[in-house]
């Protein structure tokens, strides 16, 4: 597996940061600023540069390439496999209502006996990540590793793009499948938030809007616990997300960041569905523990990255925009801490997302997470 790394900025245009710029690749994965991608020119340029490759990518709050984290640019890794086949699939006009069916359709398109893994990107504003993941699980769970993330925007929460072998657009789910015996895939994810207070039952919701826990107004309870730090708006929610899990499966816990709260109606809007009957705990953030969480995610996949890999090894990093907003300048720490664990030879590409998709543990299907860092390791071994 050989990787070329490219970066586009408004000032410099495309530059190859690593590799020869050979123009030969099987797969190009890219992430970038929404406004830079929306016109379709970046896609056309990548297509021209790698005419034989499948292209998959989407919009992001911020991008990760190597150890660098940036906004208003586009980053790409062009991968040439030694013996691994890849295929992509895309569905347009996906809505929150048909997301599950879309997940199933994508799963059926990519399914094959030698399918080893799927990396999926969904429009983080228009697509229901939980439904998408459930659909993929329905068709593929147990057959391969399902990972991915929900694309994001410059935090104006208006439009997010994704695309596979087509210019990225909204309402799209794009996915790539990796096939054959030589590819090695592993995923790790960690959070770094601390859950606190008693477990409460989610008793009244509507989709991703929470009204009551234990039959009491959720916002009232939230304000009581958070005290003076509740300033309203998204900022507080990012600091204090909720850890939710099915009542009989606490091990399948996912973190939900608060997108907004309405003091008049008592409604709290979260980045992901809030199923009634699930249990919830308040969480609090600590910048140091968040950074160490990233290191934990990296550590989980280190042992799965073969030392005798054929050529380059790639770490696809999907980290939550909520972490980016909370950590501010120290967000570089989480990338640095993760790279400390991965080692300097592992190539890193990633983006800040509106939801991360990865299995909660080795035994279960994929789930939509919030506020986590998810890392997917790709490597090839000799066939």
């Amino acid at each position, binding site marked *: 597996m050989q990787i070329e790394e490219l970066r586009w900025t408004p000032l410099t245009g495309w530059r190859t940061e690593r590799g020869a710029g050979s123009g030969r690749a099987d797969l190009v994965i890219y992430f970038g600023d929404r406004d830079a991608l929306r016109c379709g020119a970046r896609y056309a340029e990548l297509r021209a540069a790698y005419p034989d490759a499948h292209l998959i990518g989407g919009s992001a709050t911020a991008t990760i390439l190597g150890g660098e984290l940036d906004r208003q640019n586009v980053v790409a890794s062009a991968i040439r496999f030694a013996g691994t086949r890849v295929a992509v699939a895309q569905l347009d006009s996906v809505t929150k209502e048909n997301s599950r069916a879309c997940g199933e359709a994508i799963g059926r398109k990519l399914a094959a006996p030698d399918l080893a893994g799927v990396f999926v990107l969904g429009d983080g504003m228009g697509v229901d990540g939980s439904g998408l993941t459930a659909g993929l699980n329905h068709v593929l769970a147990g057959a391969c590793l399902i990972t991915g993330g929900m694309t994001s925007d410059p935090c104006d929460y208006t439009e997010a793009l994704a695309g596979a072998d087509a210019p990225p657009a909204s309402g799209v789910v794009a996915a790539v499948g990796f096939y054959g015996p030589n590819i090695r895939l592993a995923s790790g994810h960690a959070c770094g938030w601390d859950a606190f207070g*008693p477990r409460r039952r989610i008793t009244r919701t509507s989709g991703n809007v929470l009204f009551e826990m234990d039959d009491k107004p959720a916002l009232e309870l939230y304000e*009581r*616990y958070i*005290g003076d730090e509740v300033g309203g708006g998204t900022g507080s929610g990012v600091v204090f997300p909720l850890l939710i899990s099915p009542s009989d499966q606490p091990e399948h816990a996912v973190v939900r960041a608060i997108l907004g709260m309405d003091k008049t109606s008592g409604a709290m809007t979260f980045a992901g569905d809030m199923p009634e009957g699930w249990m919830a705990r308040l969480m609090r953030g*600590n910048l140091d523990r968040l950074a*160490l969480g990233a290191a934990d995610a990296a550590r989980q996949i280190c042992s799965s990255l073969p030392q005798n890999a054929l050529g380059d090894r790639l770490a696809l990093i999907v980290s939550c925009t909520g972490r980016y907003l909370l950590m501010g300048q120290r967000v570089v*720490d989480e990338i*640095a801490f993760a790279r*400390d664990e991965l080692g300097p030879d592992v190539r890193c590409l990633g983006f800040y997302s509106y939801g991360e998709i990865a299995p909660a543990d080795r035994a279960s299907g994929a789930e939509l997470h919030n506020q986590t860092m998810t890392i997917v390791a790709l490597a090839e071994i000799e066939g």
Partner: protein
Amino acid sequence: MHRLLAHQLARVTSKSGDVNLAALLDMVSQAYAEADLDRRRTDHSALVMCQEMEQLNTELHKLAHHDTLTGLANRGLFREGMLRQLALARRDGTSLAVLCIDFDRFKNINDTLGHHAGDLLLKQAAERMRSSIRDSDTLARLGGDEFLLLQIAGSQPEAAAQLADQLIKRLAEPFDLDGEQSYIGGSIGIAVSQPDGSGADELLRNADLALYQAKEDGRGTFRFFSPGMDLKMRSRRIMDQDLRKALPAGEFELYYQPVVNLASNKISGFEALIRWNHPERGLIAPNTFIPLAEETGFIVPMGEWVVRQACAAAAKWPEDLHVAVNVSGAEFRNPGLVQVIVGALAASGLHPTRLEIEITESVLVQNKETTLATLHQLRALGVRIAMDDFGTGYSSLTYLQSFPFDKIKIDRSFVKDIMENAGSLNIVRAVVALANGMGMTATAEGVETTEQLDSITSEGCTEMQGFLFSQPLPVQDIERLFLSRSRKQAIAERSFVA
């Protein structure tokens, strides 16, 4: 902190290995500041959590010890207080009284005005009772309309009697339920502890037995426990156990009493009457066990057995003879009654017009709407309906108007006095006129003498039954005496015998 610093050290170490100590110190300070903030958040959330747990604890304690509707103590809290007070009473050689209170006709409020009105009444009644007792007394609600009161007073049993009397008066006053004036009553059973030590459970049980007696004695009154009540209750319990075994053991038997048409001088049918051949006590009359069976609900399976047996027997008789079966209020409350009757008719092949269901007025009083609906269903099948024991209960003409009965049966108490008591004669005359006027058959029950027979015949009764003609007899005797020969001849012989 250690892992964090290990990662941060890498950030401030140059390629040559020099460490920027000032930058590292900054990072360490920042890490401590973060940890402090985190600790403050932890402390705050722990404090809120403690407050929340305390609040929950208080709520749980209240829920566990109080009745949520009235706010009164519940059985658990009452029992705790009672144990404490009993210990004190034993120490001081004093007595205390337990009053078991039950409302009369409360079910009517729930049935007619709904459960909201029932709840409203319970709250008002609880408040009235609470205002009638002293602070040292404890009032508890056990559920439904059952209340317990623990009275701490020096002079027992006078103090308990006085309080019970006062409570009954207060409960008899009208209740305003959302503008609707409603009335209930109260029955109270009282047990007074003995200075030498009555146990809490024994006192509660005794008060309950006394309440039962108060209810049996006509409600709206109070009774003190006496040891005889205990014996009575025990014998009831034994009879209940025996009753439940009697059906599978085949101890029940149907007797049949002929009903004679006075115009044709022919037997028109038989009334089926249950008897219990108790293995130890011999033949037991129905008035001994039917009230208990009605109370315990055993009447439902027993009634099903009766109707099946009666239909099966009548199916073998000549086609112009009917069979009458008594059906109680408890059976009418059972939604499966029509199905039971349909099943019995189908299994026996008896034509529905040959089955007569006898009900008393009390069945209609208890649940008029449902009973009427069931009666109409039965009538639609062809089953005949008779009003039994007319004149003894409410004798309300509206009940006669509410359903087109086929027959009125005049109670035996009027027939018995008909020769001596002009009042009884007038009642028989009025009921017969009423029946004839409404196109119903009038049947006189309990005819024992030829004088009574002459009298009811001259008053215009259509049918009679009674010892004058025949007492109730087992089915084989009925068939031998009345059905194997010409029935006219049989009647002539019976009349002669009488």
